Each structure stands twice: as structure tokens, then as C-alpha cells.
């Protein structure tokens, strides 16, 4: 089993902490003038998103996690699992459960490409692209002429997510949305 020593720690490294795959976010060496050095390491648990800090004695090693980040195409939802397909022409498919999908559920659109993290070949996390284009399926009728100022209303997108949009938006409009904040960006001309 591959291991990393504390002096190989850097952000982005995927390791096993308490048997769970984690990504190193920050690594700081803390050392008194003369004396034992320690590494203060900030991790994100890739299974549940928890971010926390743990202290290591410098020189210790921890096990590497067999984690791969890969782009995959979203196919469909069967009621329990969300199915994705590799884009490397292998047509290999994986099924992500609710724990892996998390917030990405709001931004799923068939045939769009998502970043999927695989741990031991099973999906543990799905991340939507930062911006996604999606159709409005439900909203109050648009107000003619009000294209510039003031006021918002809720609009439901084809994925089920509800975002705040300007008053002039109509059903059938395609919107560009920031998936990190859930904020409307602009209307896309079709």
C-alpha cells in the first residue's frame, strides 16, 4: 500500500484518515526554534464533506487513498441511483447514490459532464460544473418591458432546483446559473 510521508503532504493529495478518503486542503509545518516539528493539516473528508484539522508529528506517514477524479456524462436516475458514463470511450458506467450526489442533485442535466470522484472505483462525490445552462419549467408569467431593474421571483428549473430570477424570465427560457451559489447569471439566447 502506497504511503505519503508528512514532507510529501501538499494540497490536493488524497489519503486515508480513519479509513476514509480525504483530500488535503492545507499543510503547515509548525516547529519551535529547536525541537520536534509537527504538521498541522487541514483535510476534507470526501465521503461527507467535513473539513477539519489534524496534527501529525513530522516524519509520520499516512496511507494513500485510491481516489481518482474523472469527468463523466450524466445519463439518468432510476429512482435510487444516478448513473454516469465515462467519457474516455470505454462507455463504462457507474451508479452514484444519494451520499455521493449531495448538492449536485440540484444541477443534473442529461448529457452534461460532471466531475466524479471514484474511490476504489466507486463514486463518492459528484460536482457540477461551475456554470450550467438549464431550462425554466415553472415560474410566474414574465412582465413585459421590465428587463432592467428591480425585483425577483422564484423559477423552477428542469432539474428541480429553484432559483431567484428577474421578473422578465418566462417558462421555456434557458438560464445560466452558478452552481456554487445557486445564483442566476443571465438568460441564454436560443
Amino acid at each position, binding site marked *: 500500500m502506497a504511503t505519503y510521508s508528512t*514532507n510529501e503532504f501538499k494540497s490536493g493529495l488524497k489519503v486515508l484518515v480513519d479509513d476514509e478518503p480525504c483530500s488535503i486542503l492545507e499543510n*503547515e*509545518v*509548525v*516547529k*519551535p*526554534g*529547536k*525541537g*520536534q*516539528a*509537527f504538521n*498541522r493539516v487541514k483535510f476534507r473528508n470526501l465521503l461527507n464533506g467535513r473539513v*477539519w*484539522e*489534524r*496534527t*501529525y*508529528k*513530522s*516524519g*509520520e506517514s*499516512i496511507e494513500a487513498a485510491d481516489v481518482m477524479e474523472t469527468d463523466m456524462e450524466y445519463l439518468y436516475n432510476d429512482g435510487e441511483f444516478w448513473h454516469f458514463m465515462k467519457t474516455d470511450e470505454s462507455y463504462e458506467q457507474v451508479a452514484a447514490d444519494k451520499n455521493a450526489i449531495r448538492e449536485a442533485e440540484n444541477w443534473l442535466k442529461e448529457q452534461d459532464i460532471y466531475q466524479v470522484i471514484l474511490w476504489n472505483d466507486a463514486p463518492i462525490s459528484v460536482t457540477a460544473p461551475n456554470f450550467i445552462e438549464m431550462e425554466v419549467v415553472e415560474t410566474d408569467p414574465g412582465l413585459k418591458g421590465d428587463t432592467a431593474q428591480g425585483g425577483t421571483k422564484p423559477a423552477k428549473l428542469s432539474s428541480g432546483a429553484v432559483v431567484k430570477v428577474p421578473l422578465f424570465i418566462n417558462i421555456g427560457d434557458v438560464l445560466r446559473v452558478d452552481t456554487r451559489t445557486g445564483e442566476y447569471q443571465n438568460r441564454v439566447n436560443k
Partner: protein
Amino acid sequence: MDEWKSGASLATLKLRAKLLAITRKFFADRGVLEVETAVLSRSVSTDVHLDPVNAFFGPTSNSQRFYLQTSPELQMKRLLAIGVGPIYQICKAFRGDPSTSRHNPEFTILEWYRPSFSLTQLMEEVEEFAEATIGCLKIPKYSYLEVFEGVIGLNPHKCSLEELEKFAHSRLDIAPIEIRFSEYLDLLMTEFIEPSLPEYCFLYDYPKCQAAMAVIENDSNGNQIARRFELYCKGVEIANGYFELTDPVEQLERLELDNVERSKKGLPKMPVDEKFLAALSAGIPKGSGVALGLDRLLMIMGKLEDIDSALAFSINRV
């Protein structure tokens, strides 16, 4: 990054030259002699936490092994033994710890020795040097005991390993591995005490297990303490001073103990410096000595955030 360029700006390069000039004048005015000792040596500090850089002649590592000095301490003490009087040196030292925003593996040390000085007298001189370079007046002095008790609530000279362990684990998530008493002190120092220190201060009278090359004595409360001090500036250790251990027997014991510790940690043993021990046997005057990190001092003078910008070429640029 334009890697061929220096990390230090032109203004910082000039400030470094000024710092060196101030330093030389400071010691010239006090009648302290500037010396140079060898950077390459057949033996080096046995300190468990120092990771020396090895050097070999020729194209392979089959030749005699030398080390780049981790500090000029042992050779300067050999000069004290011939009766050179008060001396100082500005030199490069090498420690293979990972480079960080405040440590470069090659760095500049200012080290000086004051035969007949008590630790308190030397702290006062360091204070004068700080005034001459970074312009800070009146640096408060705290015993290790008072800051440790104040922040951690334990007496570091008398508490048990279990008490340190309990405190550390109640505040930090620590990976499960054996941590020894002195290492817990280091951890608590860096995580809790250093951040609570005032902008400038001295800590003095260290726990016995951190004596390094300082004399161990009983204080007025019956605590066994090491006559050692450190100067902290903005939470960073700048200088480390000792009332120097001059007893060759005790010194040899400590060097051998270091090597026992090194073996336990799976580190190579370091050859004990026989010439240094011979100098102690010949006799060096009782007194105090201090090593000060000039690059870090320059960082404070120039308000620099990263040691890379205090050096012409840090390890990432060579």
C-alpha cells in the same frame, strides 16, 4: 515566477547590507572579536531535531564524509578554550528541515559568546542589539514556567506526560502516534503559547529536557531548569541563548543520550566531536552564548512575510 531573479528586492538587499554593517559596528564598539570557523566539519551537532546536510569530495559518496555545519557553536567554543575572549561570527548554517515561509535550509546565523556573562546579562545585550537593529525598546522577560502555567495551566517542570497528553488531546485532533514529553512541550508551545506571546519577548529557564547545551540548575522553587532563553518576535523564535555547559563529562553524557534518542527514532548516530570535548576538558570560561537568525531579523526589519523575500536566492531559486 521569474526563477532567475532574486527573491529579495533591491531595497531588501540594501537593508541586509545595512543590517550586517550595524551588526559589525555593534560588536566592534563592545570590543567583541569577529571570527570565522569552518563550515565543513567531520562532526556536527548530535541534536535529535537537527537534520544535517552531508558533503563529500569528488563525484561519489565514497570519500570521507563531512557535514555542513548546523551551527558554529562547537568550533567557537574551541576558540573560547584558547582564551580568545568575547567573540562573534556571522556565517551560513545548514539544516535540512523542510523549507517553510520562515525557514530556508541554508540560513545566516549571528552567534556570539560572552565569557563571564550571566544569562541575564546576555539577554540585556540581545535586547540592546534588537534596539540597534529593529528599534524595539524594553523587551519583557517571562520565565517558561509563568507562560506555560498561564496558558496551559500546568507546571512544565513537574507535570506528567499524561497531563500534557490530556490537555493536548482536549484541544487538538492528533494523529495516533507516540509523542514524548518534550515533544508535547514543543507542540503546546507552537500551538498555544507562541500565538499568545506579546510582539516581542524573552522566554527563559526552560524545562530540563530541553537543556540542549545549557547548564541545568535548581531554581528558587526547587524546579530543575535549564539556563536557556529564547527571543520571540511576532510569535517567531529569533534567538536562542545558553548559560553554557562547560563540564566535559556531563556534555559527553548529553551527546551520547542524543545518539540513543536518534537510534530510537531510526536516525543515524552522529559522530561525537572529540576535539570539542577535548577543548572542554582543557577548560572554557563560564559564560553565556547566543545564536540569532539574521534572515528572520531581516524579515522583521523589512516587514517581509516570507523568508524567500529576505534572501537573494532561497532554496527554490537555486
